[in-house]
């Protein structure tokens, strides 16, 4: 994926004496994970196509502290939070968008008490608002008529009650949206949350991502849509485990919209 996308940083904006409309919080997965970087790029392309004036923190961004907090390391979480808040407050950030539900939840819910009060949106909410404002067009394109099932990320869905934004976007793609038997508030976790992403699972008789992939496969999808880089990894691994990677793609909602338009 060797193509350069134009991504302004807050430091550059500051140097020009400008402020962007929104800060794009890329997150660790979006910055470093090869699969998630594709999601980041797809989202940036959509931001450009909607003429959104955005910037990233770049090297000034650091982990929100979510996996540390969920592991029980409140010290490390708060050190990360306070450092990030200092940076963001120095840039007088008002609005943040992120493609990671874990960053989204932490920035939105756990930063305010530590002095970081921002309007925080998940990228599906942000894209939905662009769509509503007429700044972004979403068309079926090559996904028209495909069977797609959406896996609710726990930290977007149950944790923050965002169920409709990603679905509204998918419907705009003129796809056949099929719900898994466990969806929305009853959605099953992909197995990555609570810092499980970074450790081996405890002994059991199955991996959570396999259980969830089975839910998804029951809907006989062409595509499993995700809204979280970690869910994406877990579901991709699950699909590989079931040897279905040739027939089923796991794609982020942002990738679906960007790819539909061949951005």
């Amino acid at each position, binding site marked *: 994926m*060797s193509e*350069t*996308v*134009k*991504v302004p*940083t807050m430091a550059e904006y500051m140097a020009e004496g400008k402020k962007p409309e929104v800060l794009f919080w*890329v997150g*660790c997965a979006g*910055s*470093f994970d090869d699969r998630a*970087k594709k999601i980041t790029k797809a989202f*940036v392309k959509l931001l450009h196509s909607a003429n959104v004036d955005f910037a*990233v923190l*770049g*090297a000034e*961004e*650091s*982990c929100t*502290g979510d*996996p*540390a*907090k*969920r*592991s*029980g*390391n*409140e010290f*490390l979480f*708060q*050190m*990360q939070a*306070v450092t990030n808040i200092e940076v963001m407050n120095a840039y007088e950030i008002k609005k943040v968008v992120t493609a990671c539900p874990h960053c989204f*939840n932490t920035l939105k*819910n*756990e930063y305010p008490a*530590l002095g970081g009060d921002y309007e925080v949106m998940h990228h599906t909410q942000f894209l939905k608002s662009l769509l509503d404002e007429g700044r972004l067009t979403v068309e079926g394109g090559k996904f028209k008529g495909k069977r797609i099932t959406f896996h609710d990320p*726990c930290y977007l869905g*149950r*944790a*923050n009650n965002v169920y409709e934004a990603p679905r509204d976007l998918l419907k705009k793609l003129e796809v056949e949206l099929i719900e898994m038997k466990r969806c929305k508030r*009853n959605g*099953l976790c992909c*197995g*990555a*949350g*609570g*810092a*499980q*992403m*970074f*450790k*081996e*699972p*405890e*002994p*059991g*008789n*199955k991996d*959570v991502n396999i*259980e969830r992939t089975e839910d998804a496969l029951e809907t006989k999808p062409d595509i499993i849509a995700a809204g979280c880089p970690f869910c994406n990894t877990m579901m991709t691994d699950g699909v590989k485990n079931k040897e279905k990677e040739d027939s089923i793609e796991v794609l982020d909602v942002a990738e679906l919209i960007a790819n539909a338009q061949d951005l």
Partner: protein
Amino acid sequence: MQYIPNILFVIVLVAGIGYFTKNIRKVIRNIRLGKDVDRSDNKGERFKNMAMIAMGQSKMIRRPIAGILHIVVYLGFIIINIEVLEIIIDGIFGTHRIFAFLGGFYDFLIASFEILALLVFVGVVLFWTRRNVIKLKRFWNPEMKGWPKNDGNLILYFEMVLMALFLVMNAADLQLQELGADHYIKAGSYPVSQFISPLFDGMSEGSLFLIERGAWWLHILGILVFLNYLYFSKHLHILLAFPNTYYGDLKPQGQLDNLEAVTNEVMLMMDPSADPFAAPADDQQEGEPEKFGASDVMDLNWAQLLNAYTCTECGRCTSECPANQTGKKLSPRKIMMDTRDRLKEVGDNIDKNGSFVDDGKQLLNDYITPEELWACTSCNACVEACPVSISPLSIIIDMRRYLVMEESAAPTDLNNMMSNIENNGAPWPFNQMDRLNWSNE
């Protein structure tokens, strides 16, 4: 001599309510062993939650079969209690069916009680069938062996017997009314017990009187025993569901609290003008440093302890838990049961010794193992599933905090992840300066 039944009744009533009150005070004292947490905000929203979730059973009906059966038993329980009021007045004053003066309305009341009693009986039999014949998986998890299983069934037997006694009492009363026996005024309408009544056809007035009085006494004694059984049982939820839903966490489910003690230290570390060698201000006590996280019940807050007493072991949390579904040891229900059992143990210790004497045990390890705690994905499925606003997740996180911040006992993989965050601001070992490399890869 004629007042002996009245006197006996008053003694039994006072003893029953007295012992219950004594035990409930213990429950309240035990809950207060928890740390303080402010749940005095947003009274309106809290009342609404209590009205919807506890009174309105809004989360029970998410599983329709159990939900509807539960509503029948719940309504029956509440409405039939009006009858208990009559029984108590009759018992104290030696009257019989004191509310009979209500006339047609009394007929309506008694008829409603009878129909509800029958429905409750049927509902309870179905509940019993689900547990013991259909053997729904969530009632057969490892933590349900022994007492929890017997407790669940005992409650159902209690309710079956109480409803049966109520109907038998009415059936005998109906016969006595028709015989024109002394005291047994014609009152009430008996849509259910009229079908039981023929069983007593041809019996003498004396036998009928024995049956009616026997059923009456056993019914009220049964209610008092059941009331006192609550304290020893998971069945306390019939009372605690109300405060528990009122004091439930109103934050978004994804939001964990920020530990204030940690914030103070972090702010001090980040403050360039802070003097690390400064003597504590006069108003600051230099006591033992606060413990981070929870290793025992006293480290949890009172709302978490109220959660533990409220849990009625329905197992919806465990059946929704991704870790439990995939064979891990974690069961959110067991987290709540362990917390309650340990809290009771601590309470008994206080009763025995006057104040808590170290018993060499704690919630961590002796009840809940690190293996269970580390299996949690913090997905909130358990919190969402609970019909009475219990959060097993908040206890899991507090115990993880203890493991990590007090014991440095995180799994190795997580320690690596955390040292990566400390060193380079990401859970993986990538250089922070490379965070924007993706833009030109």
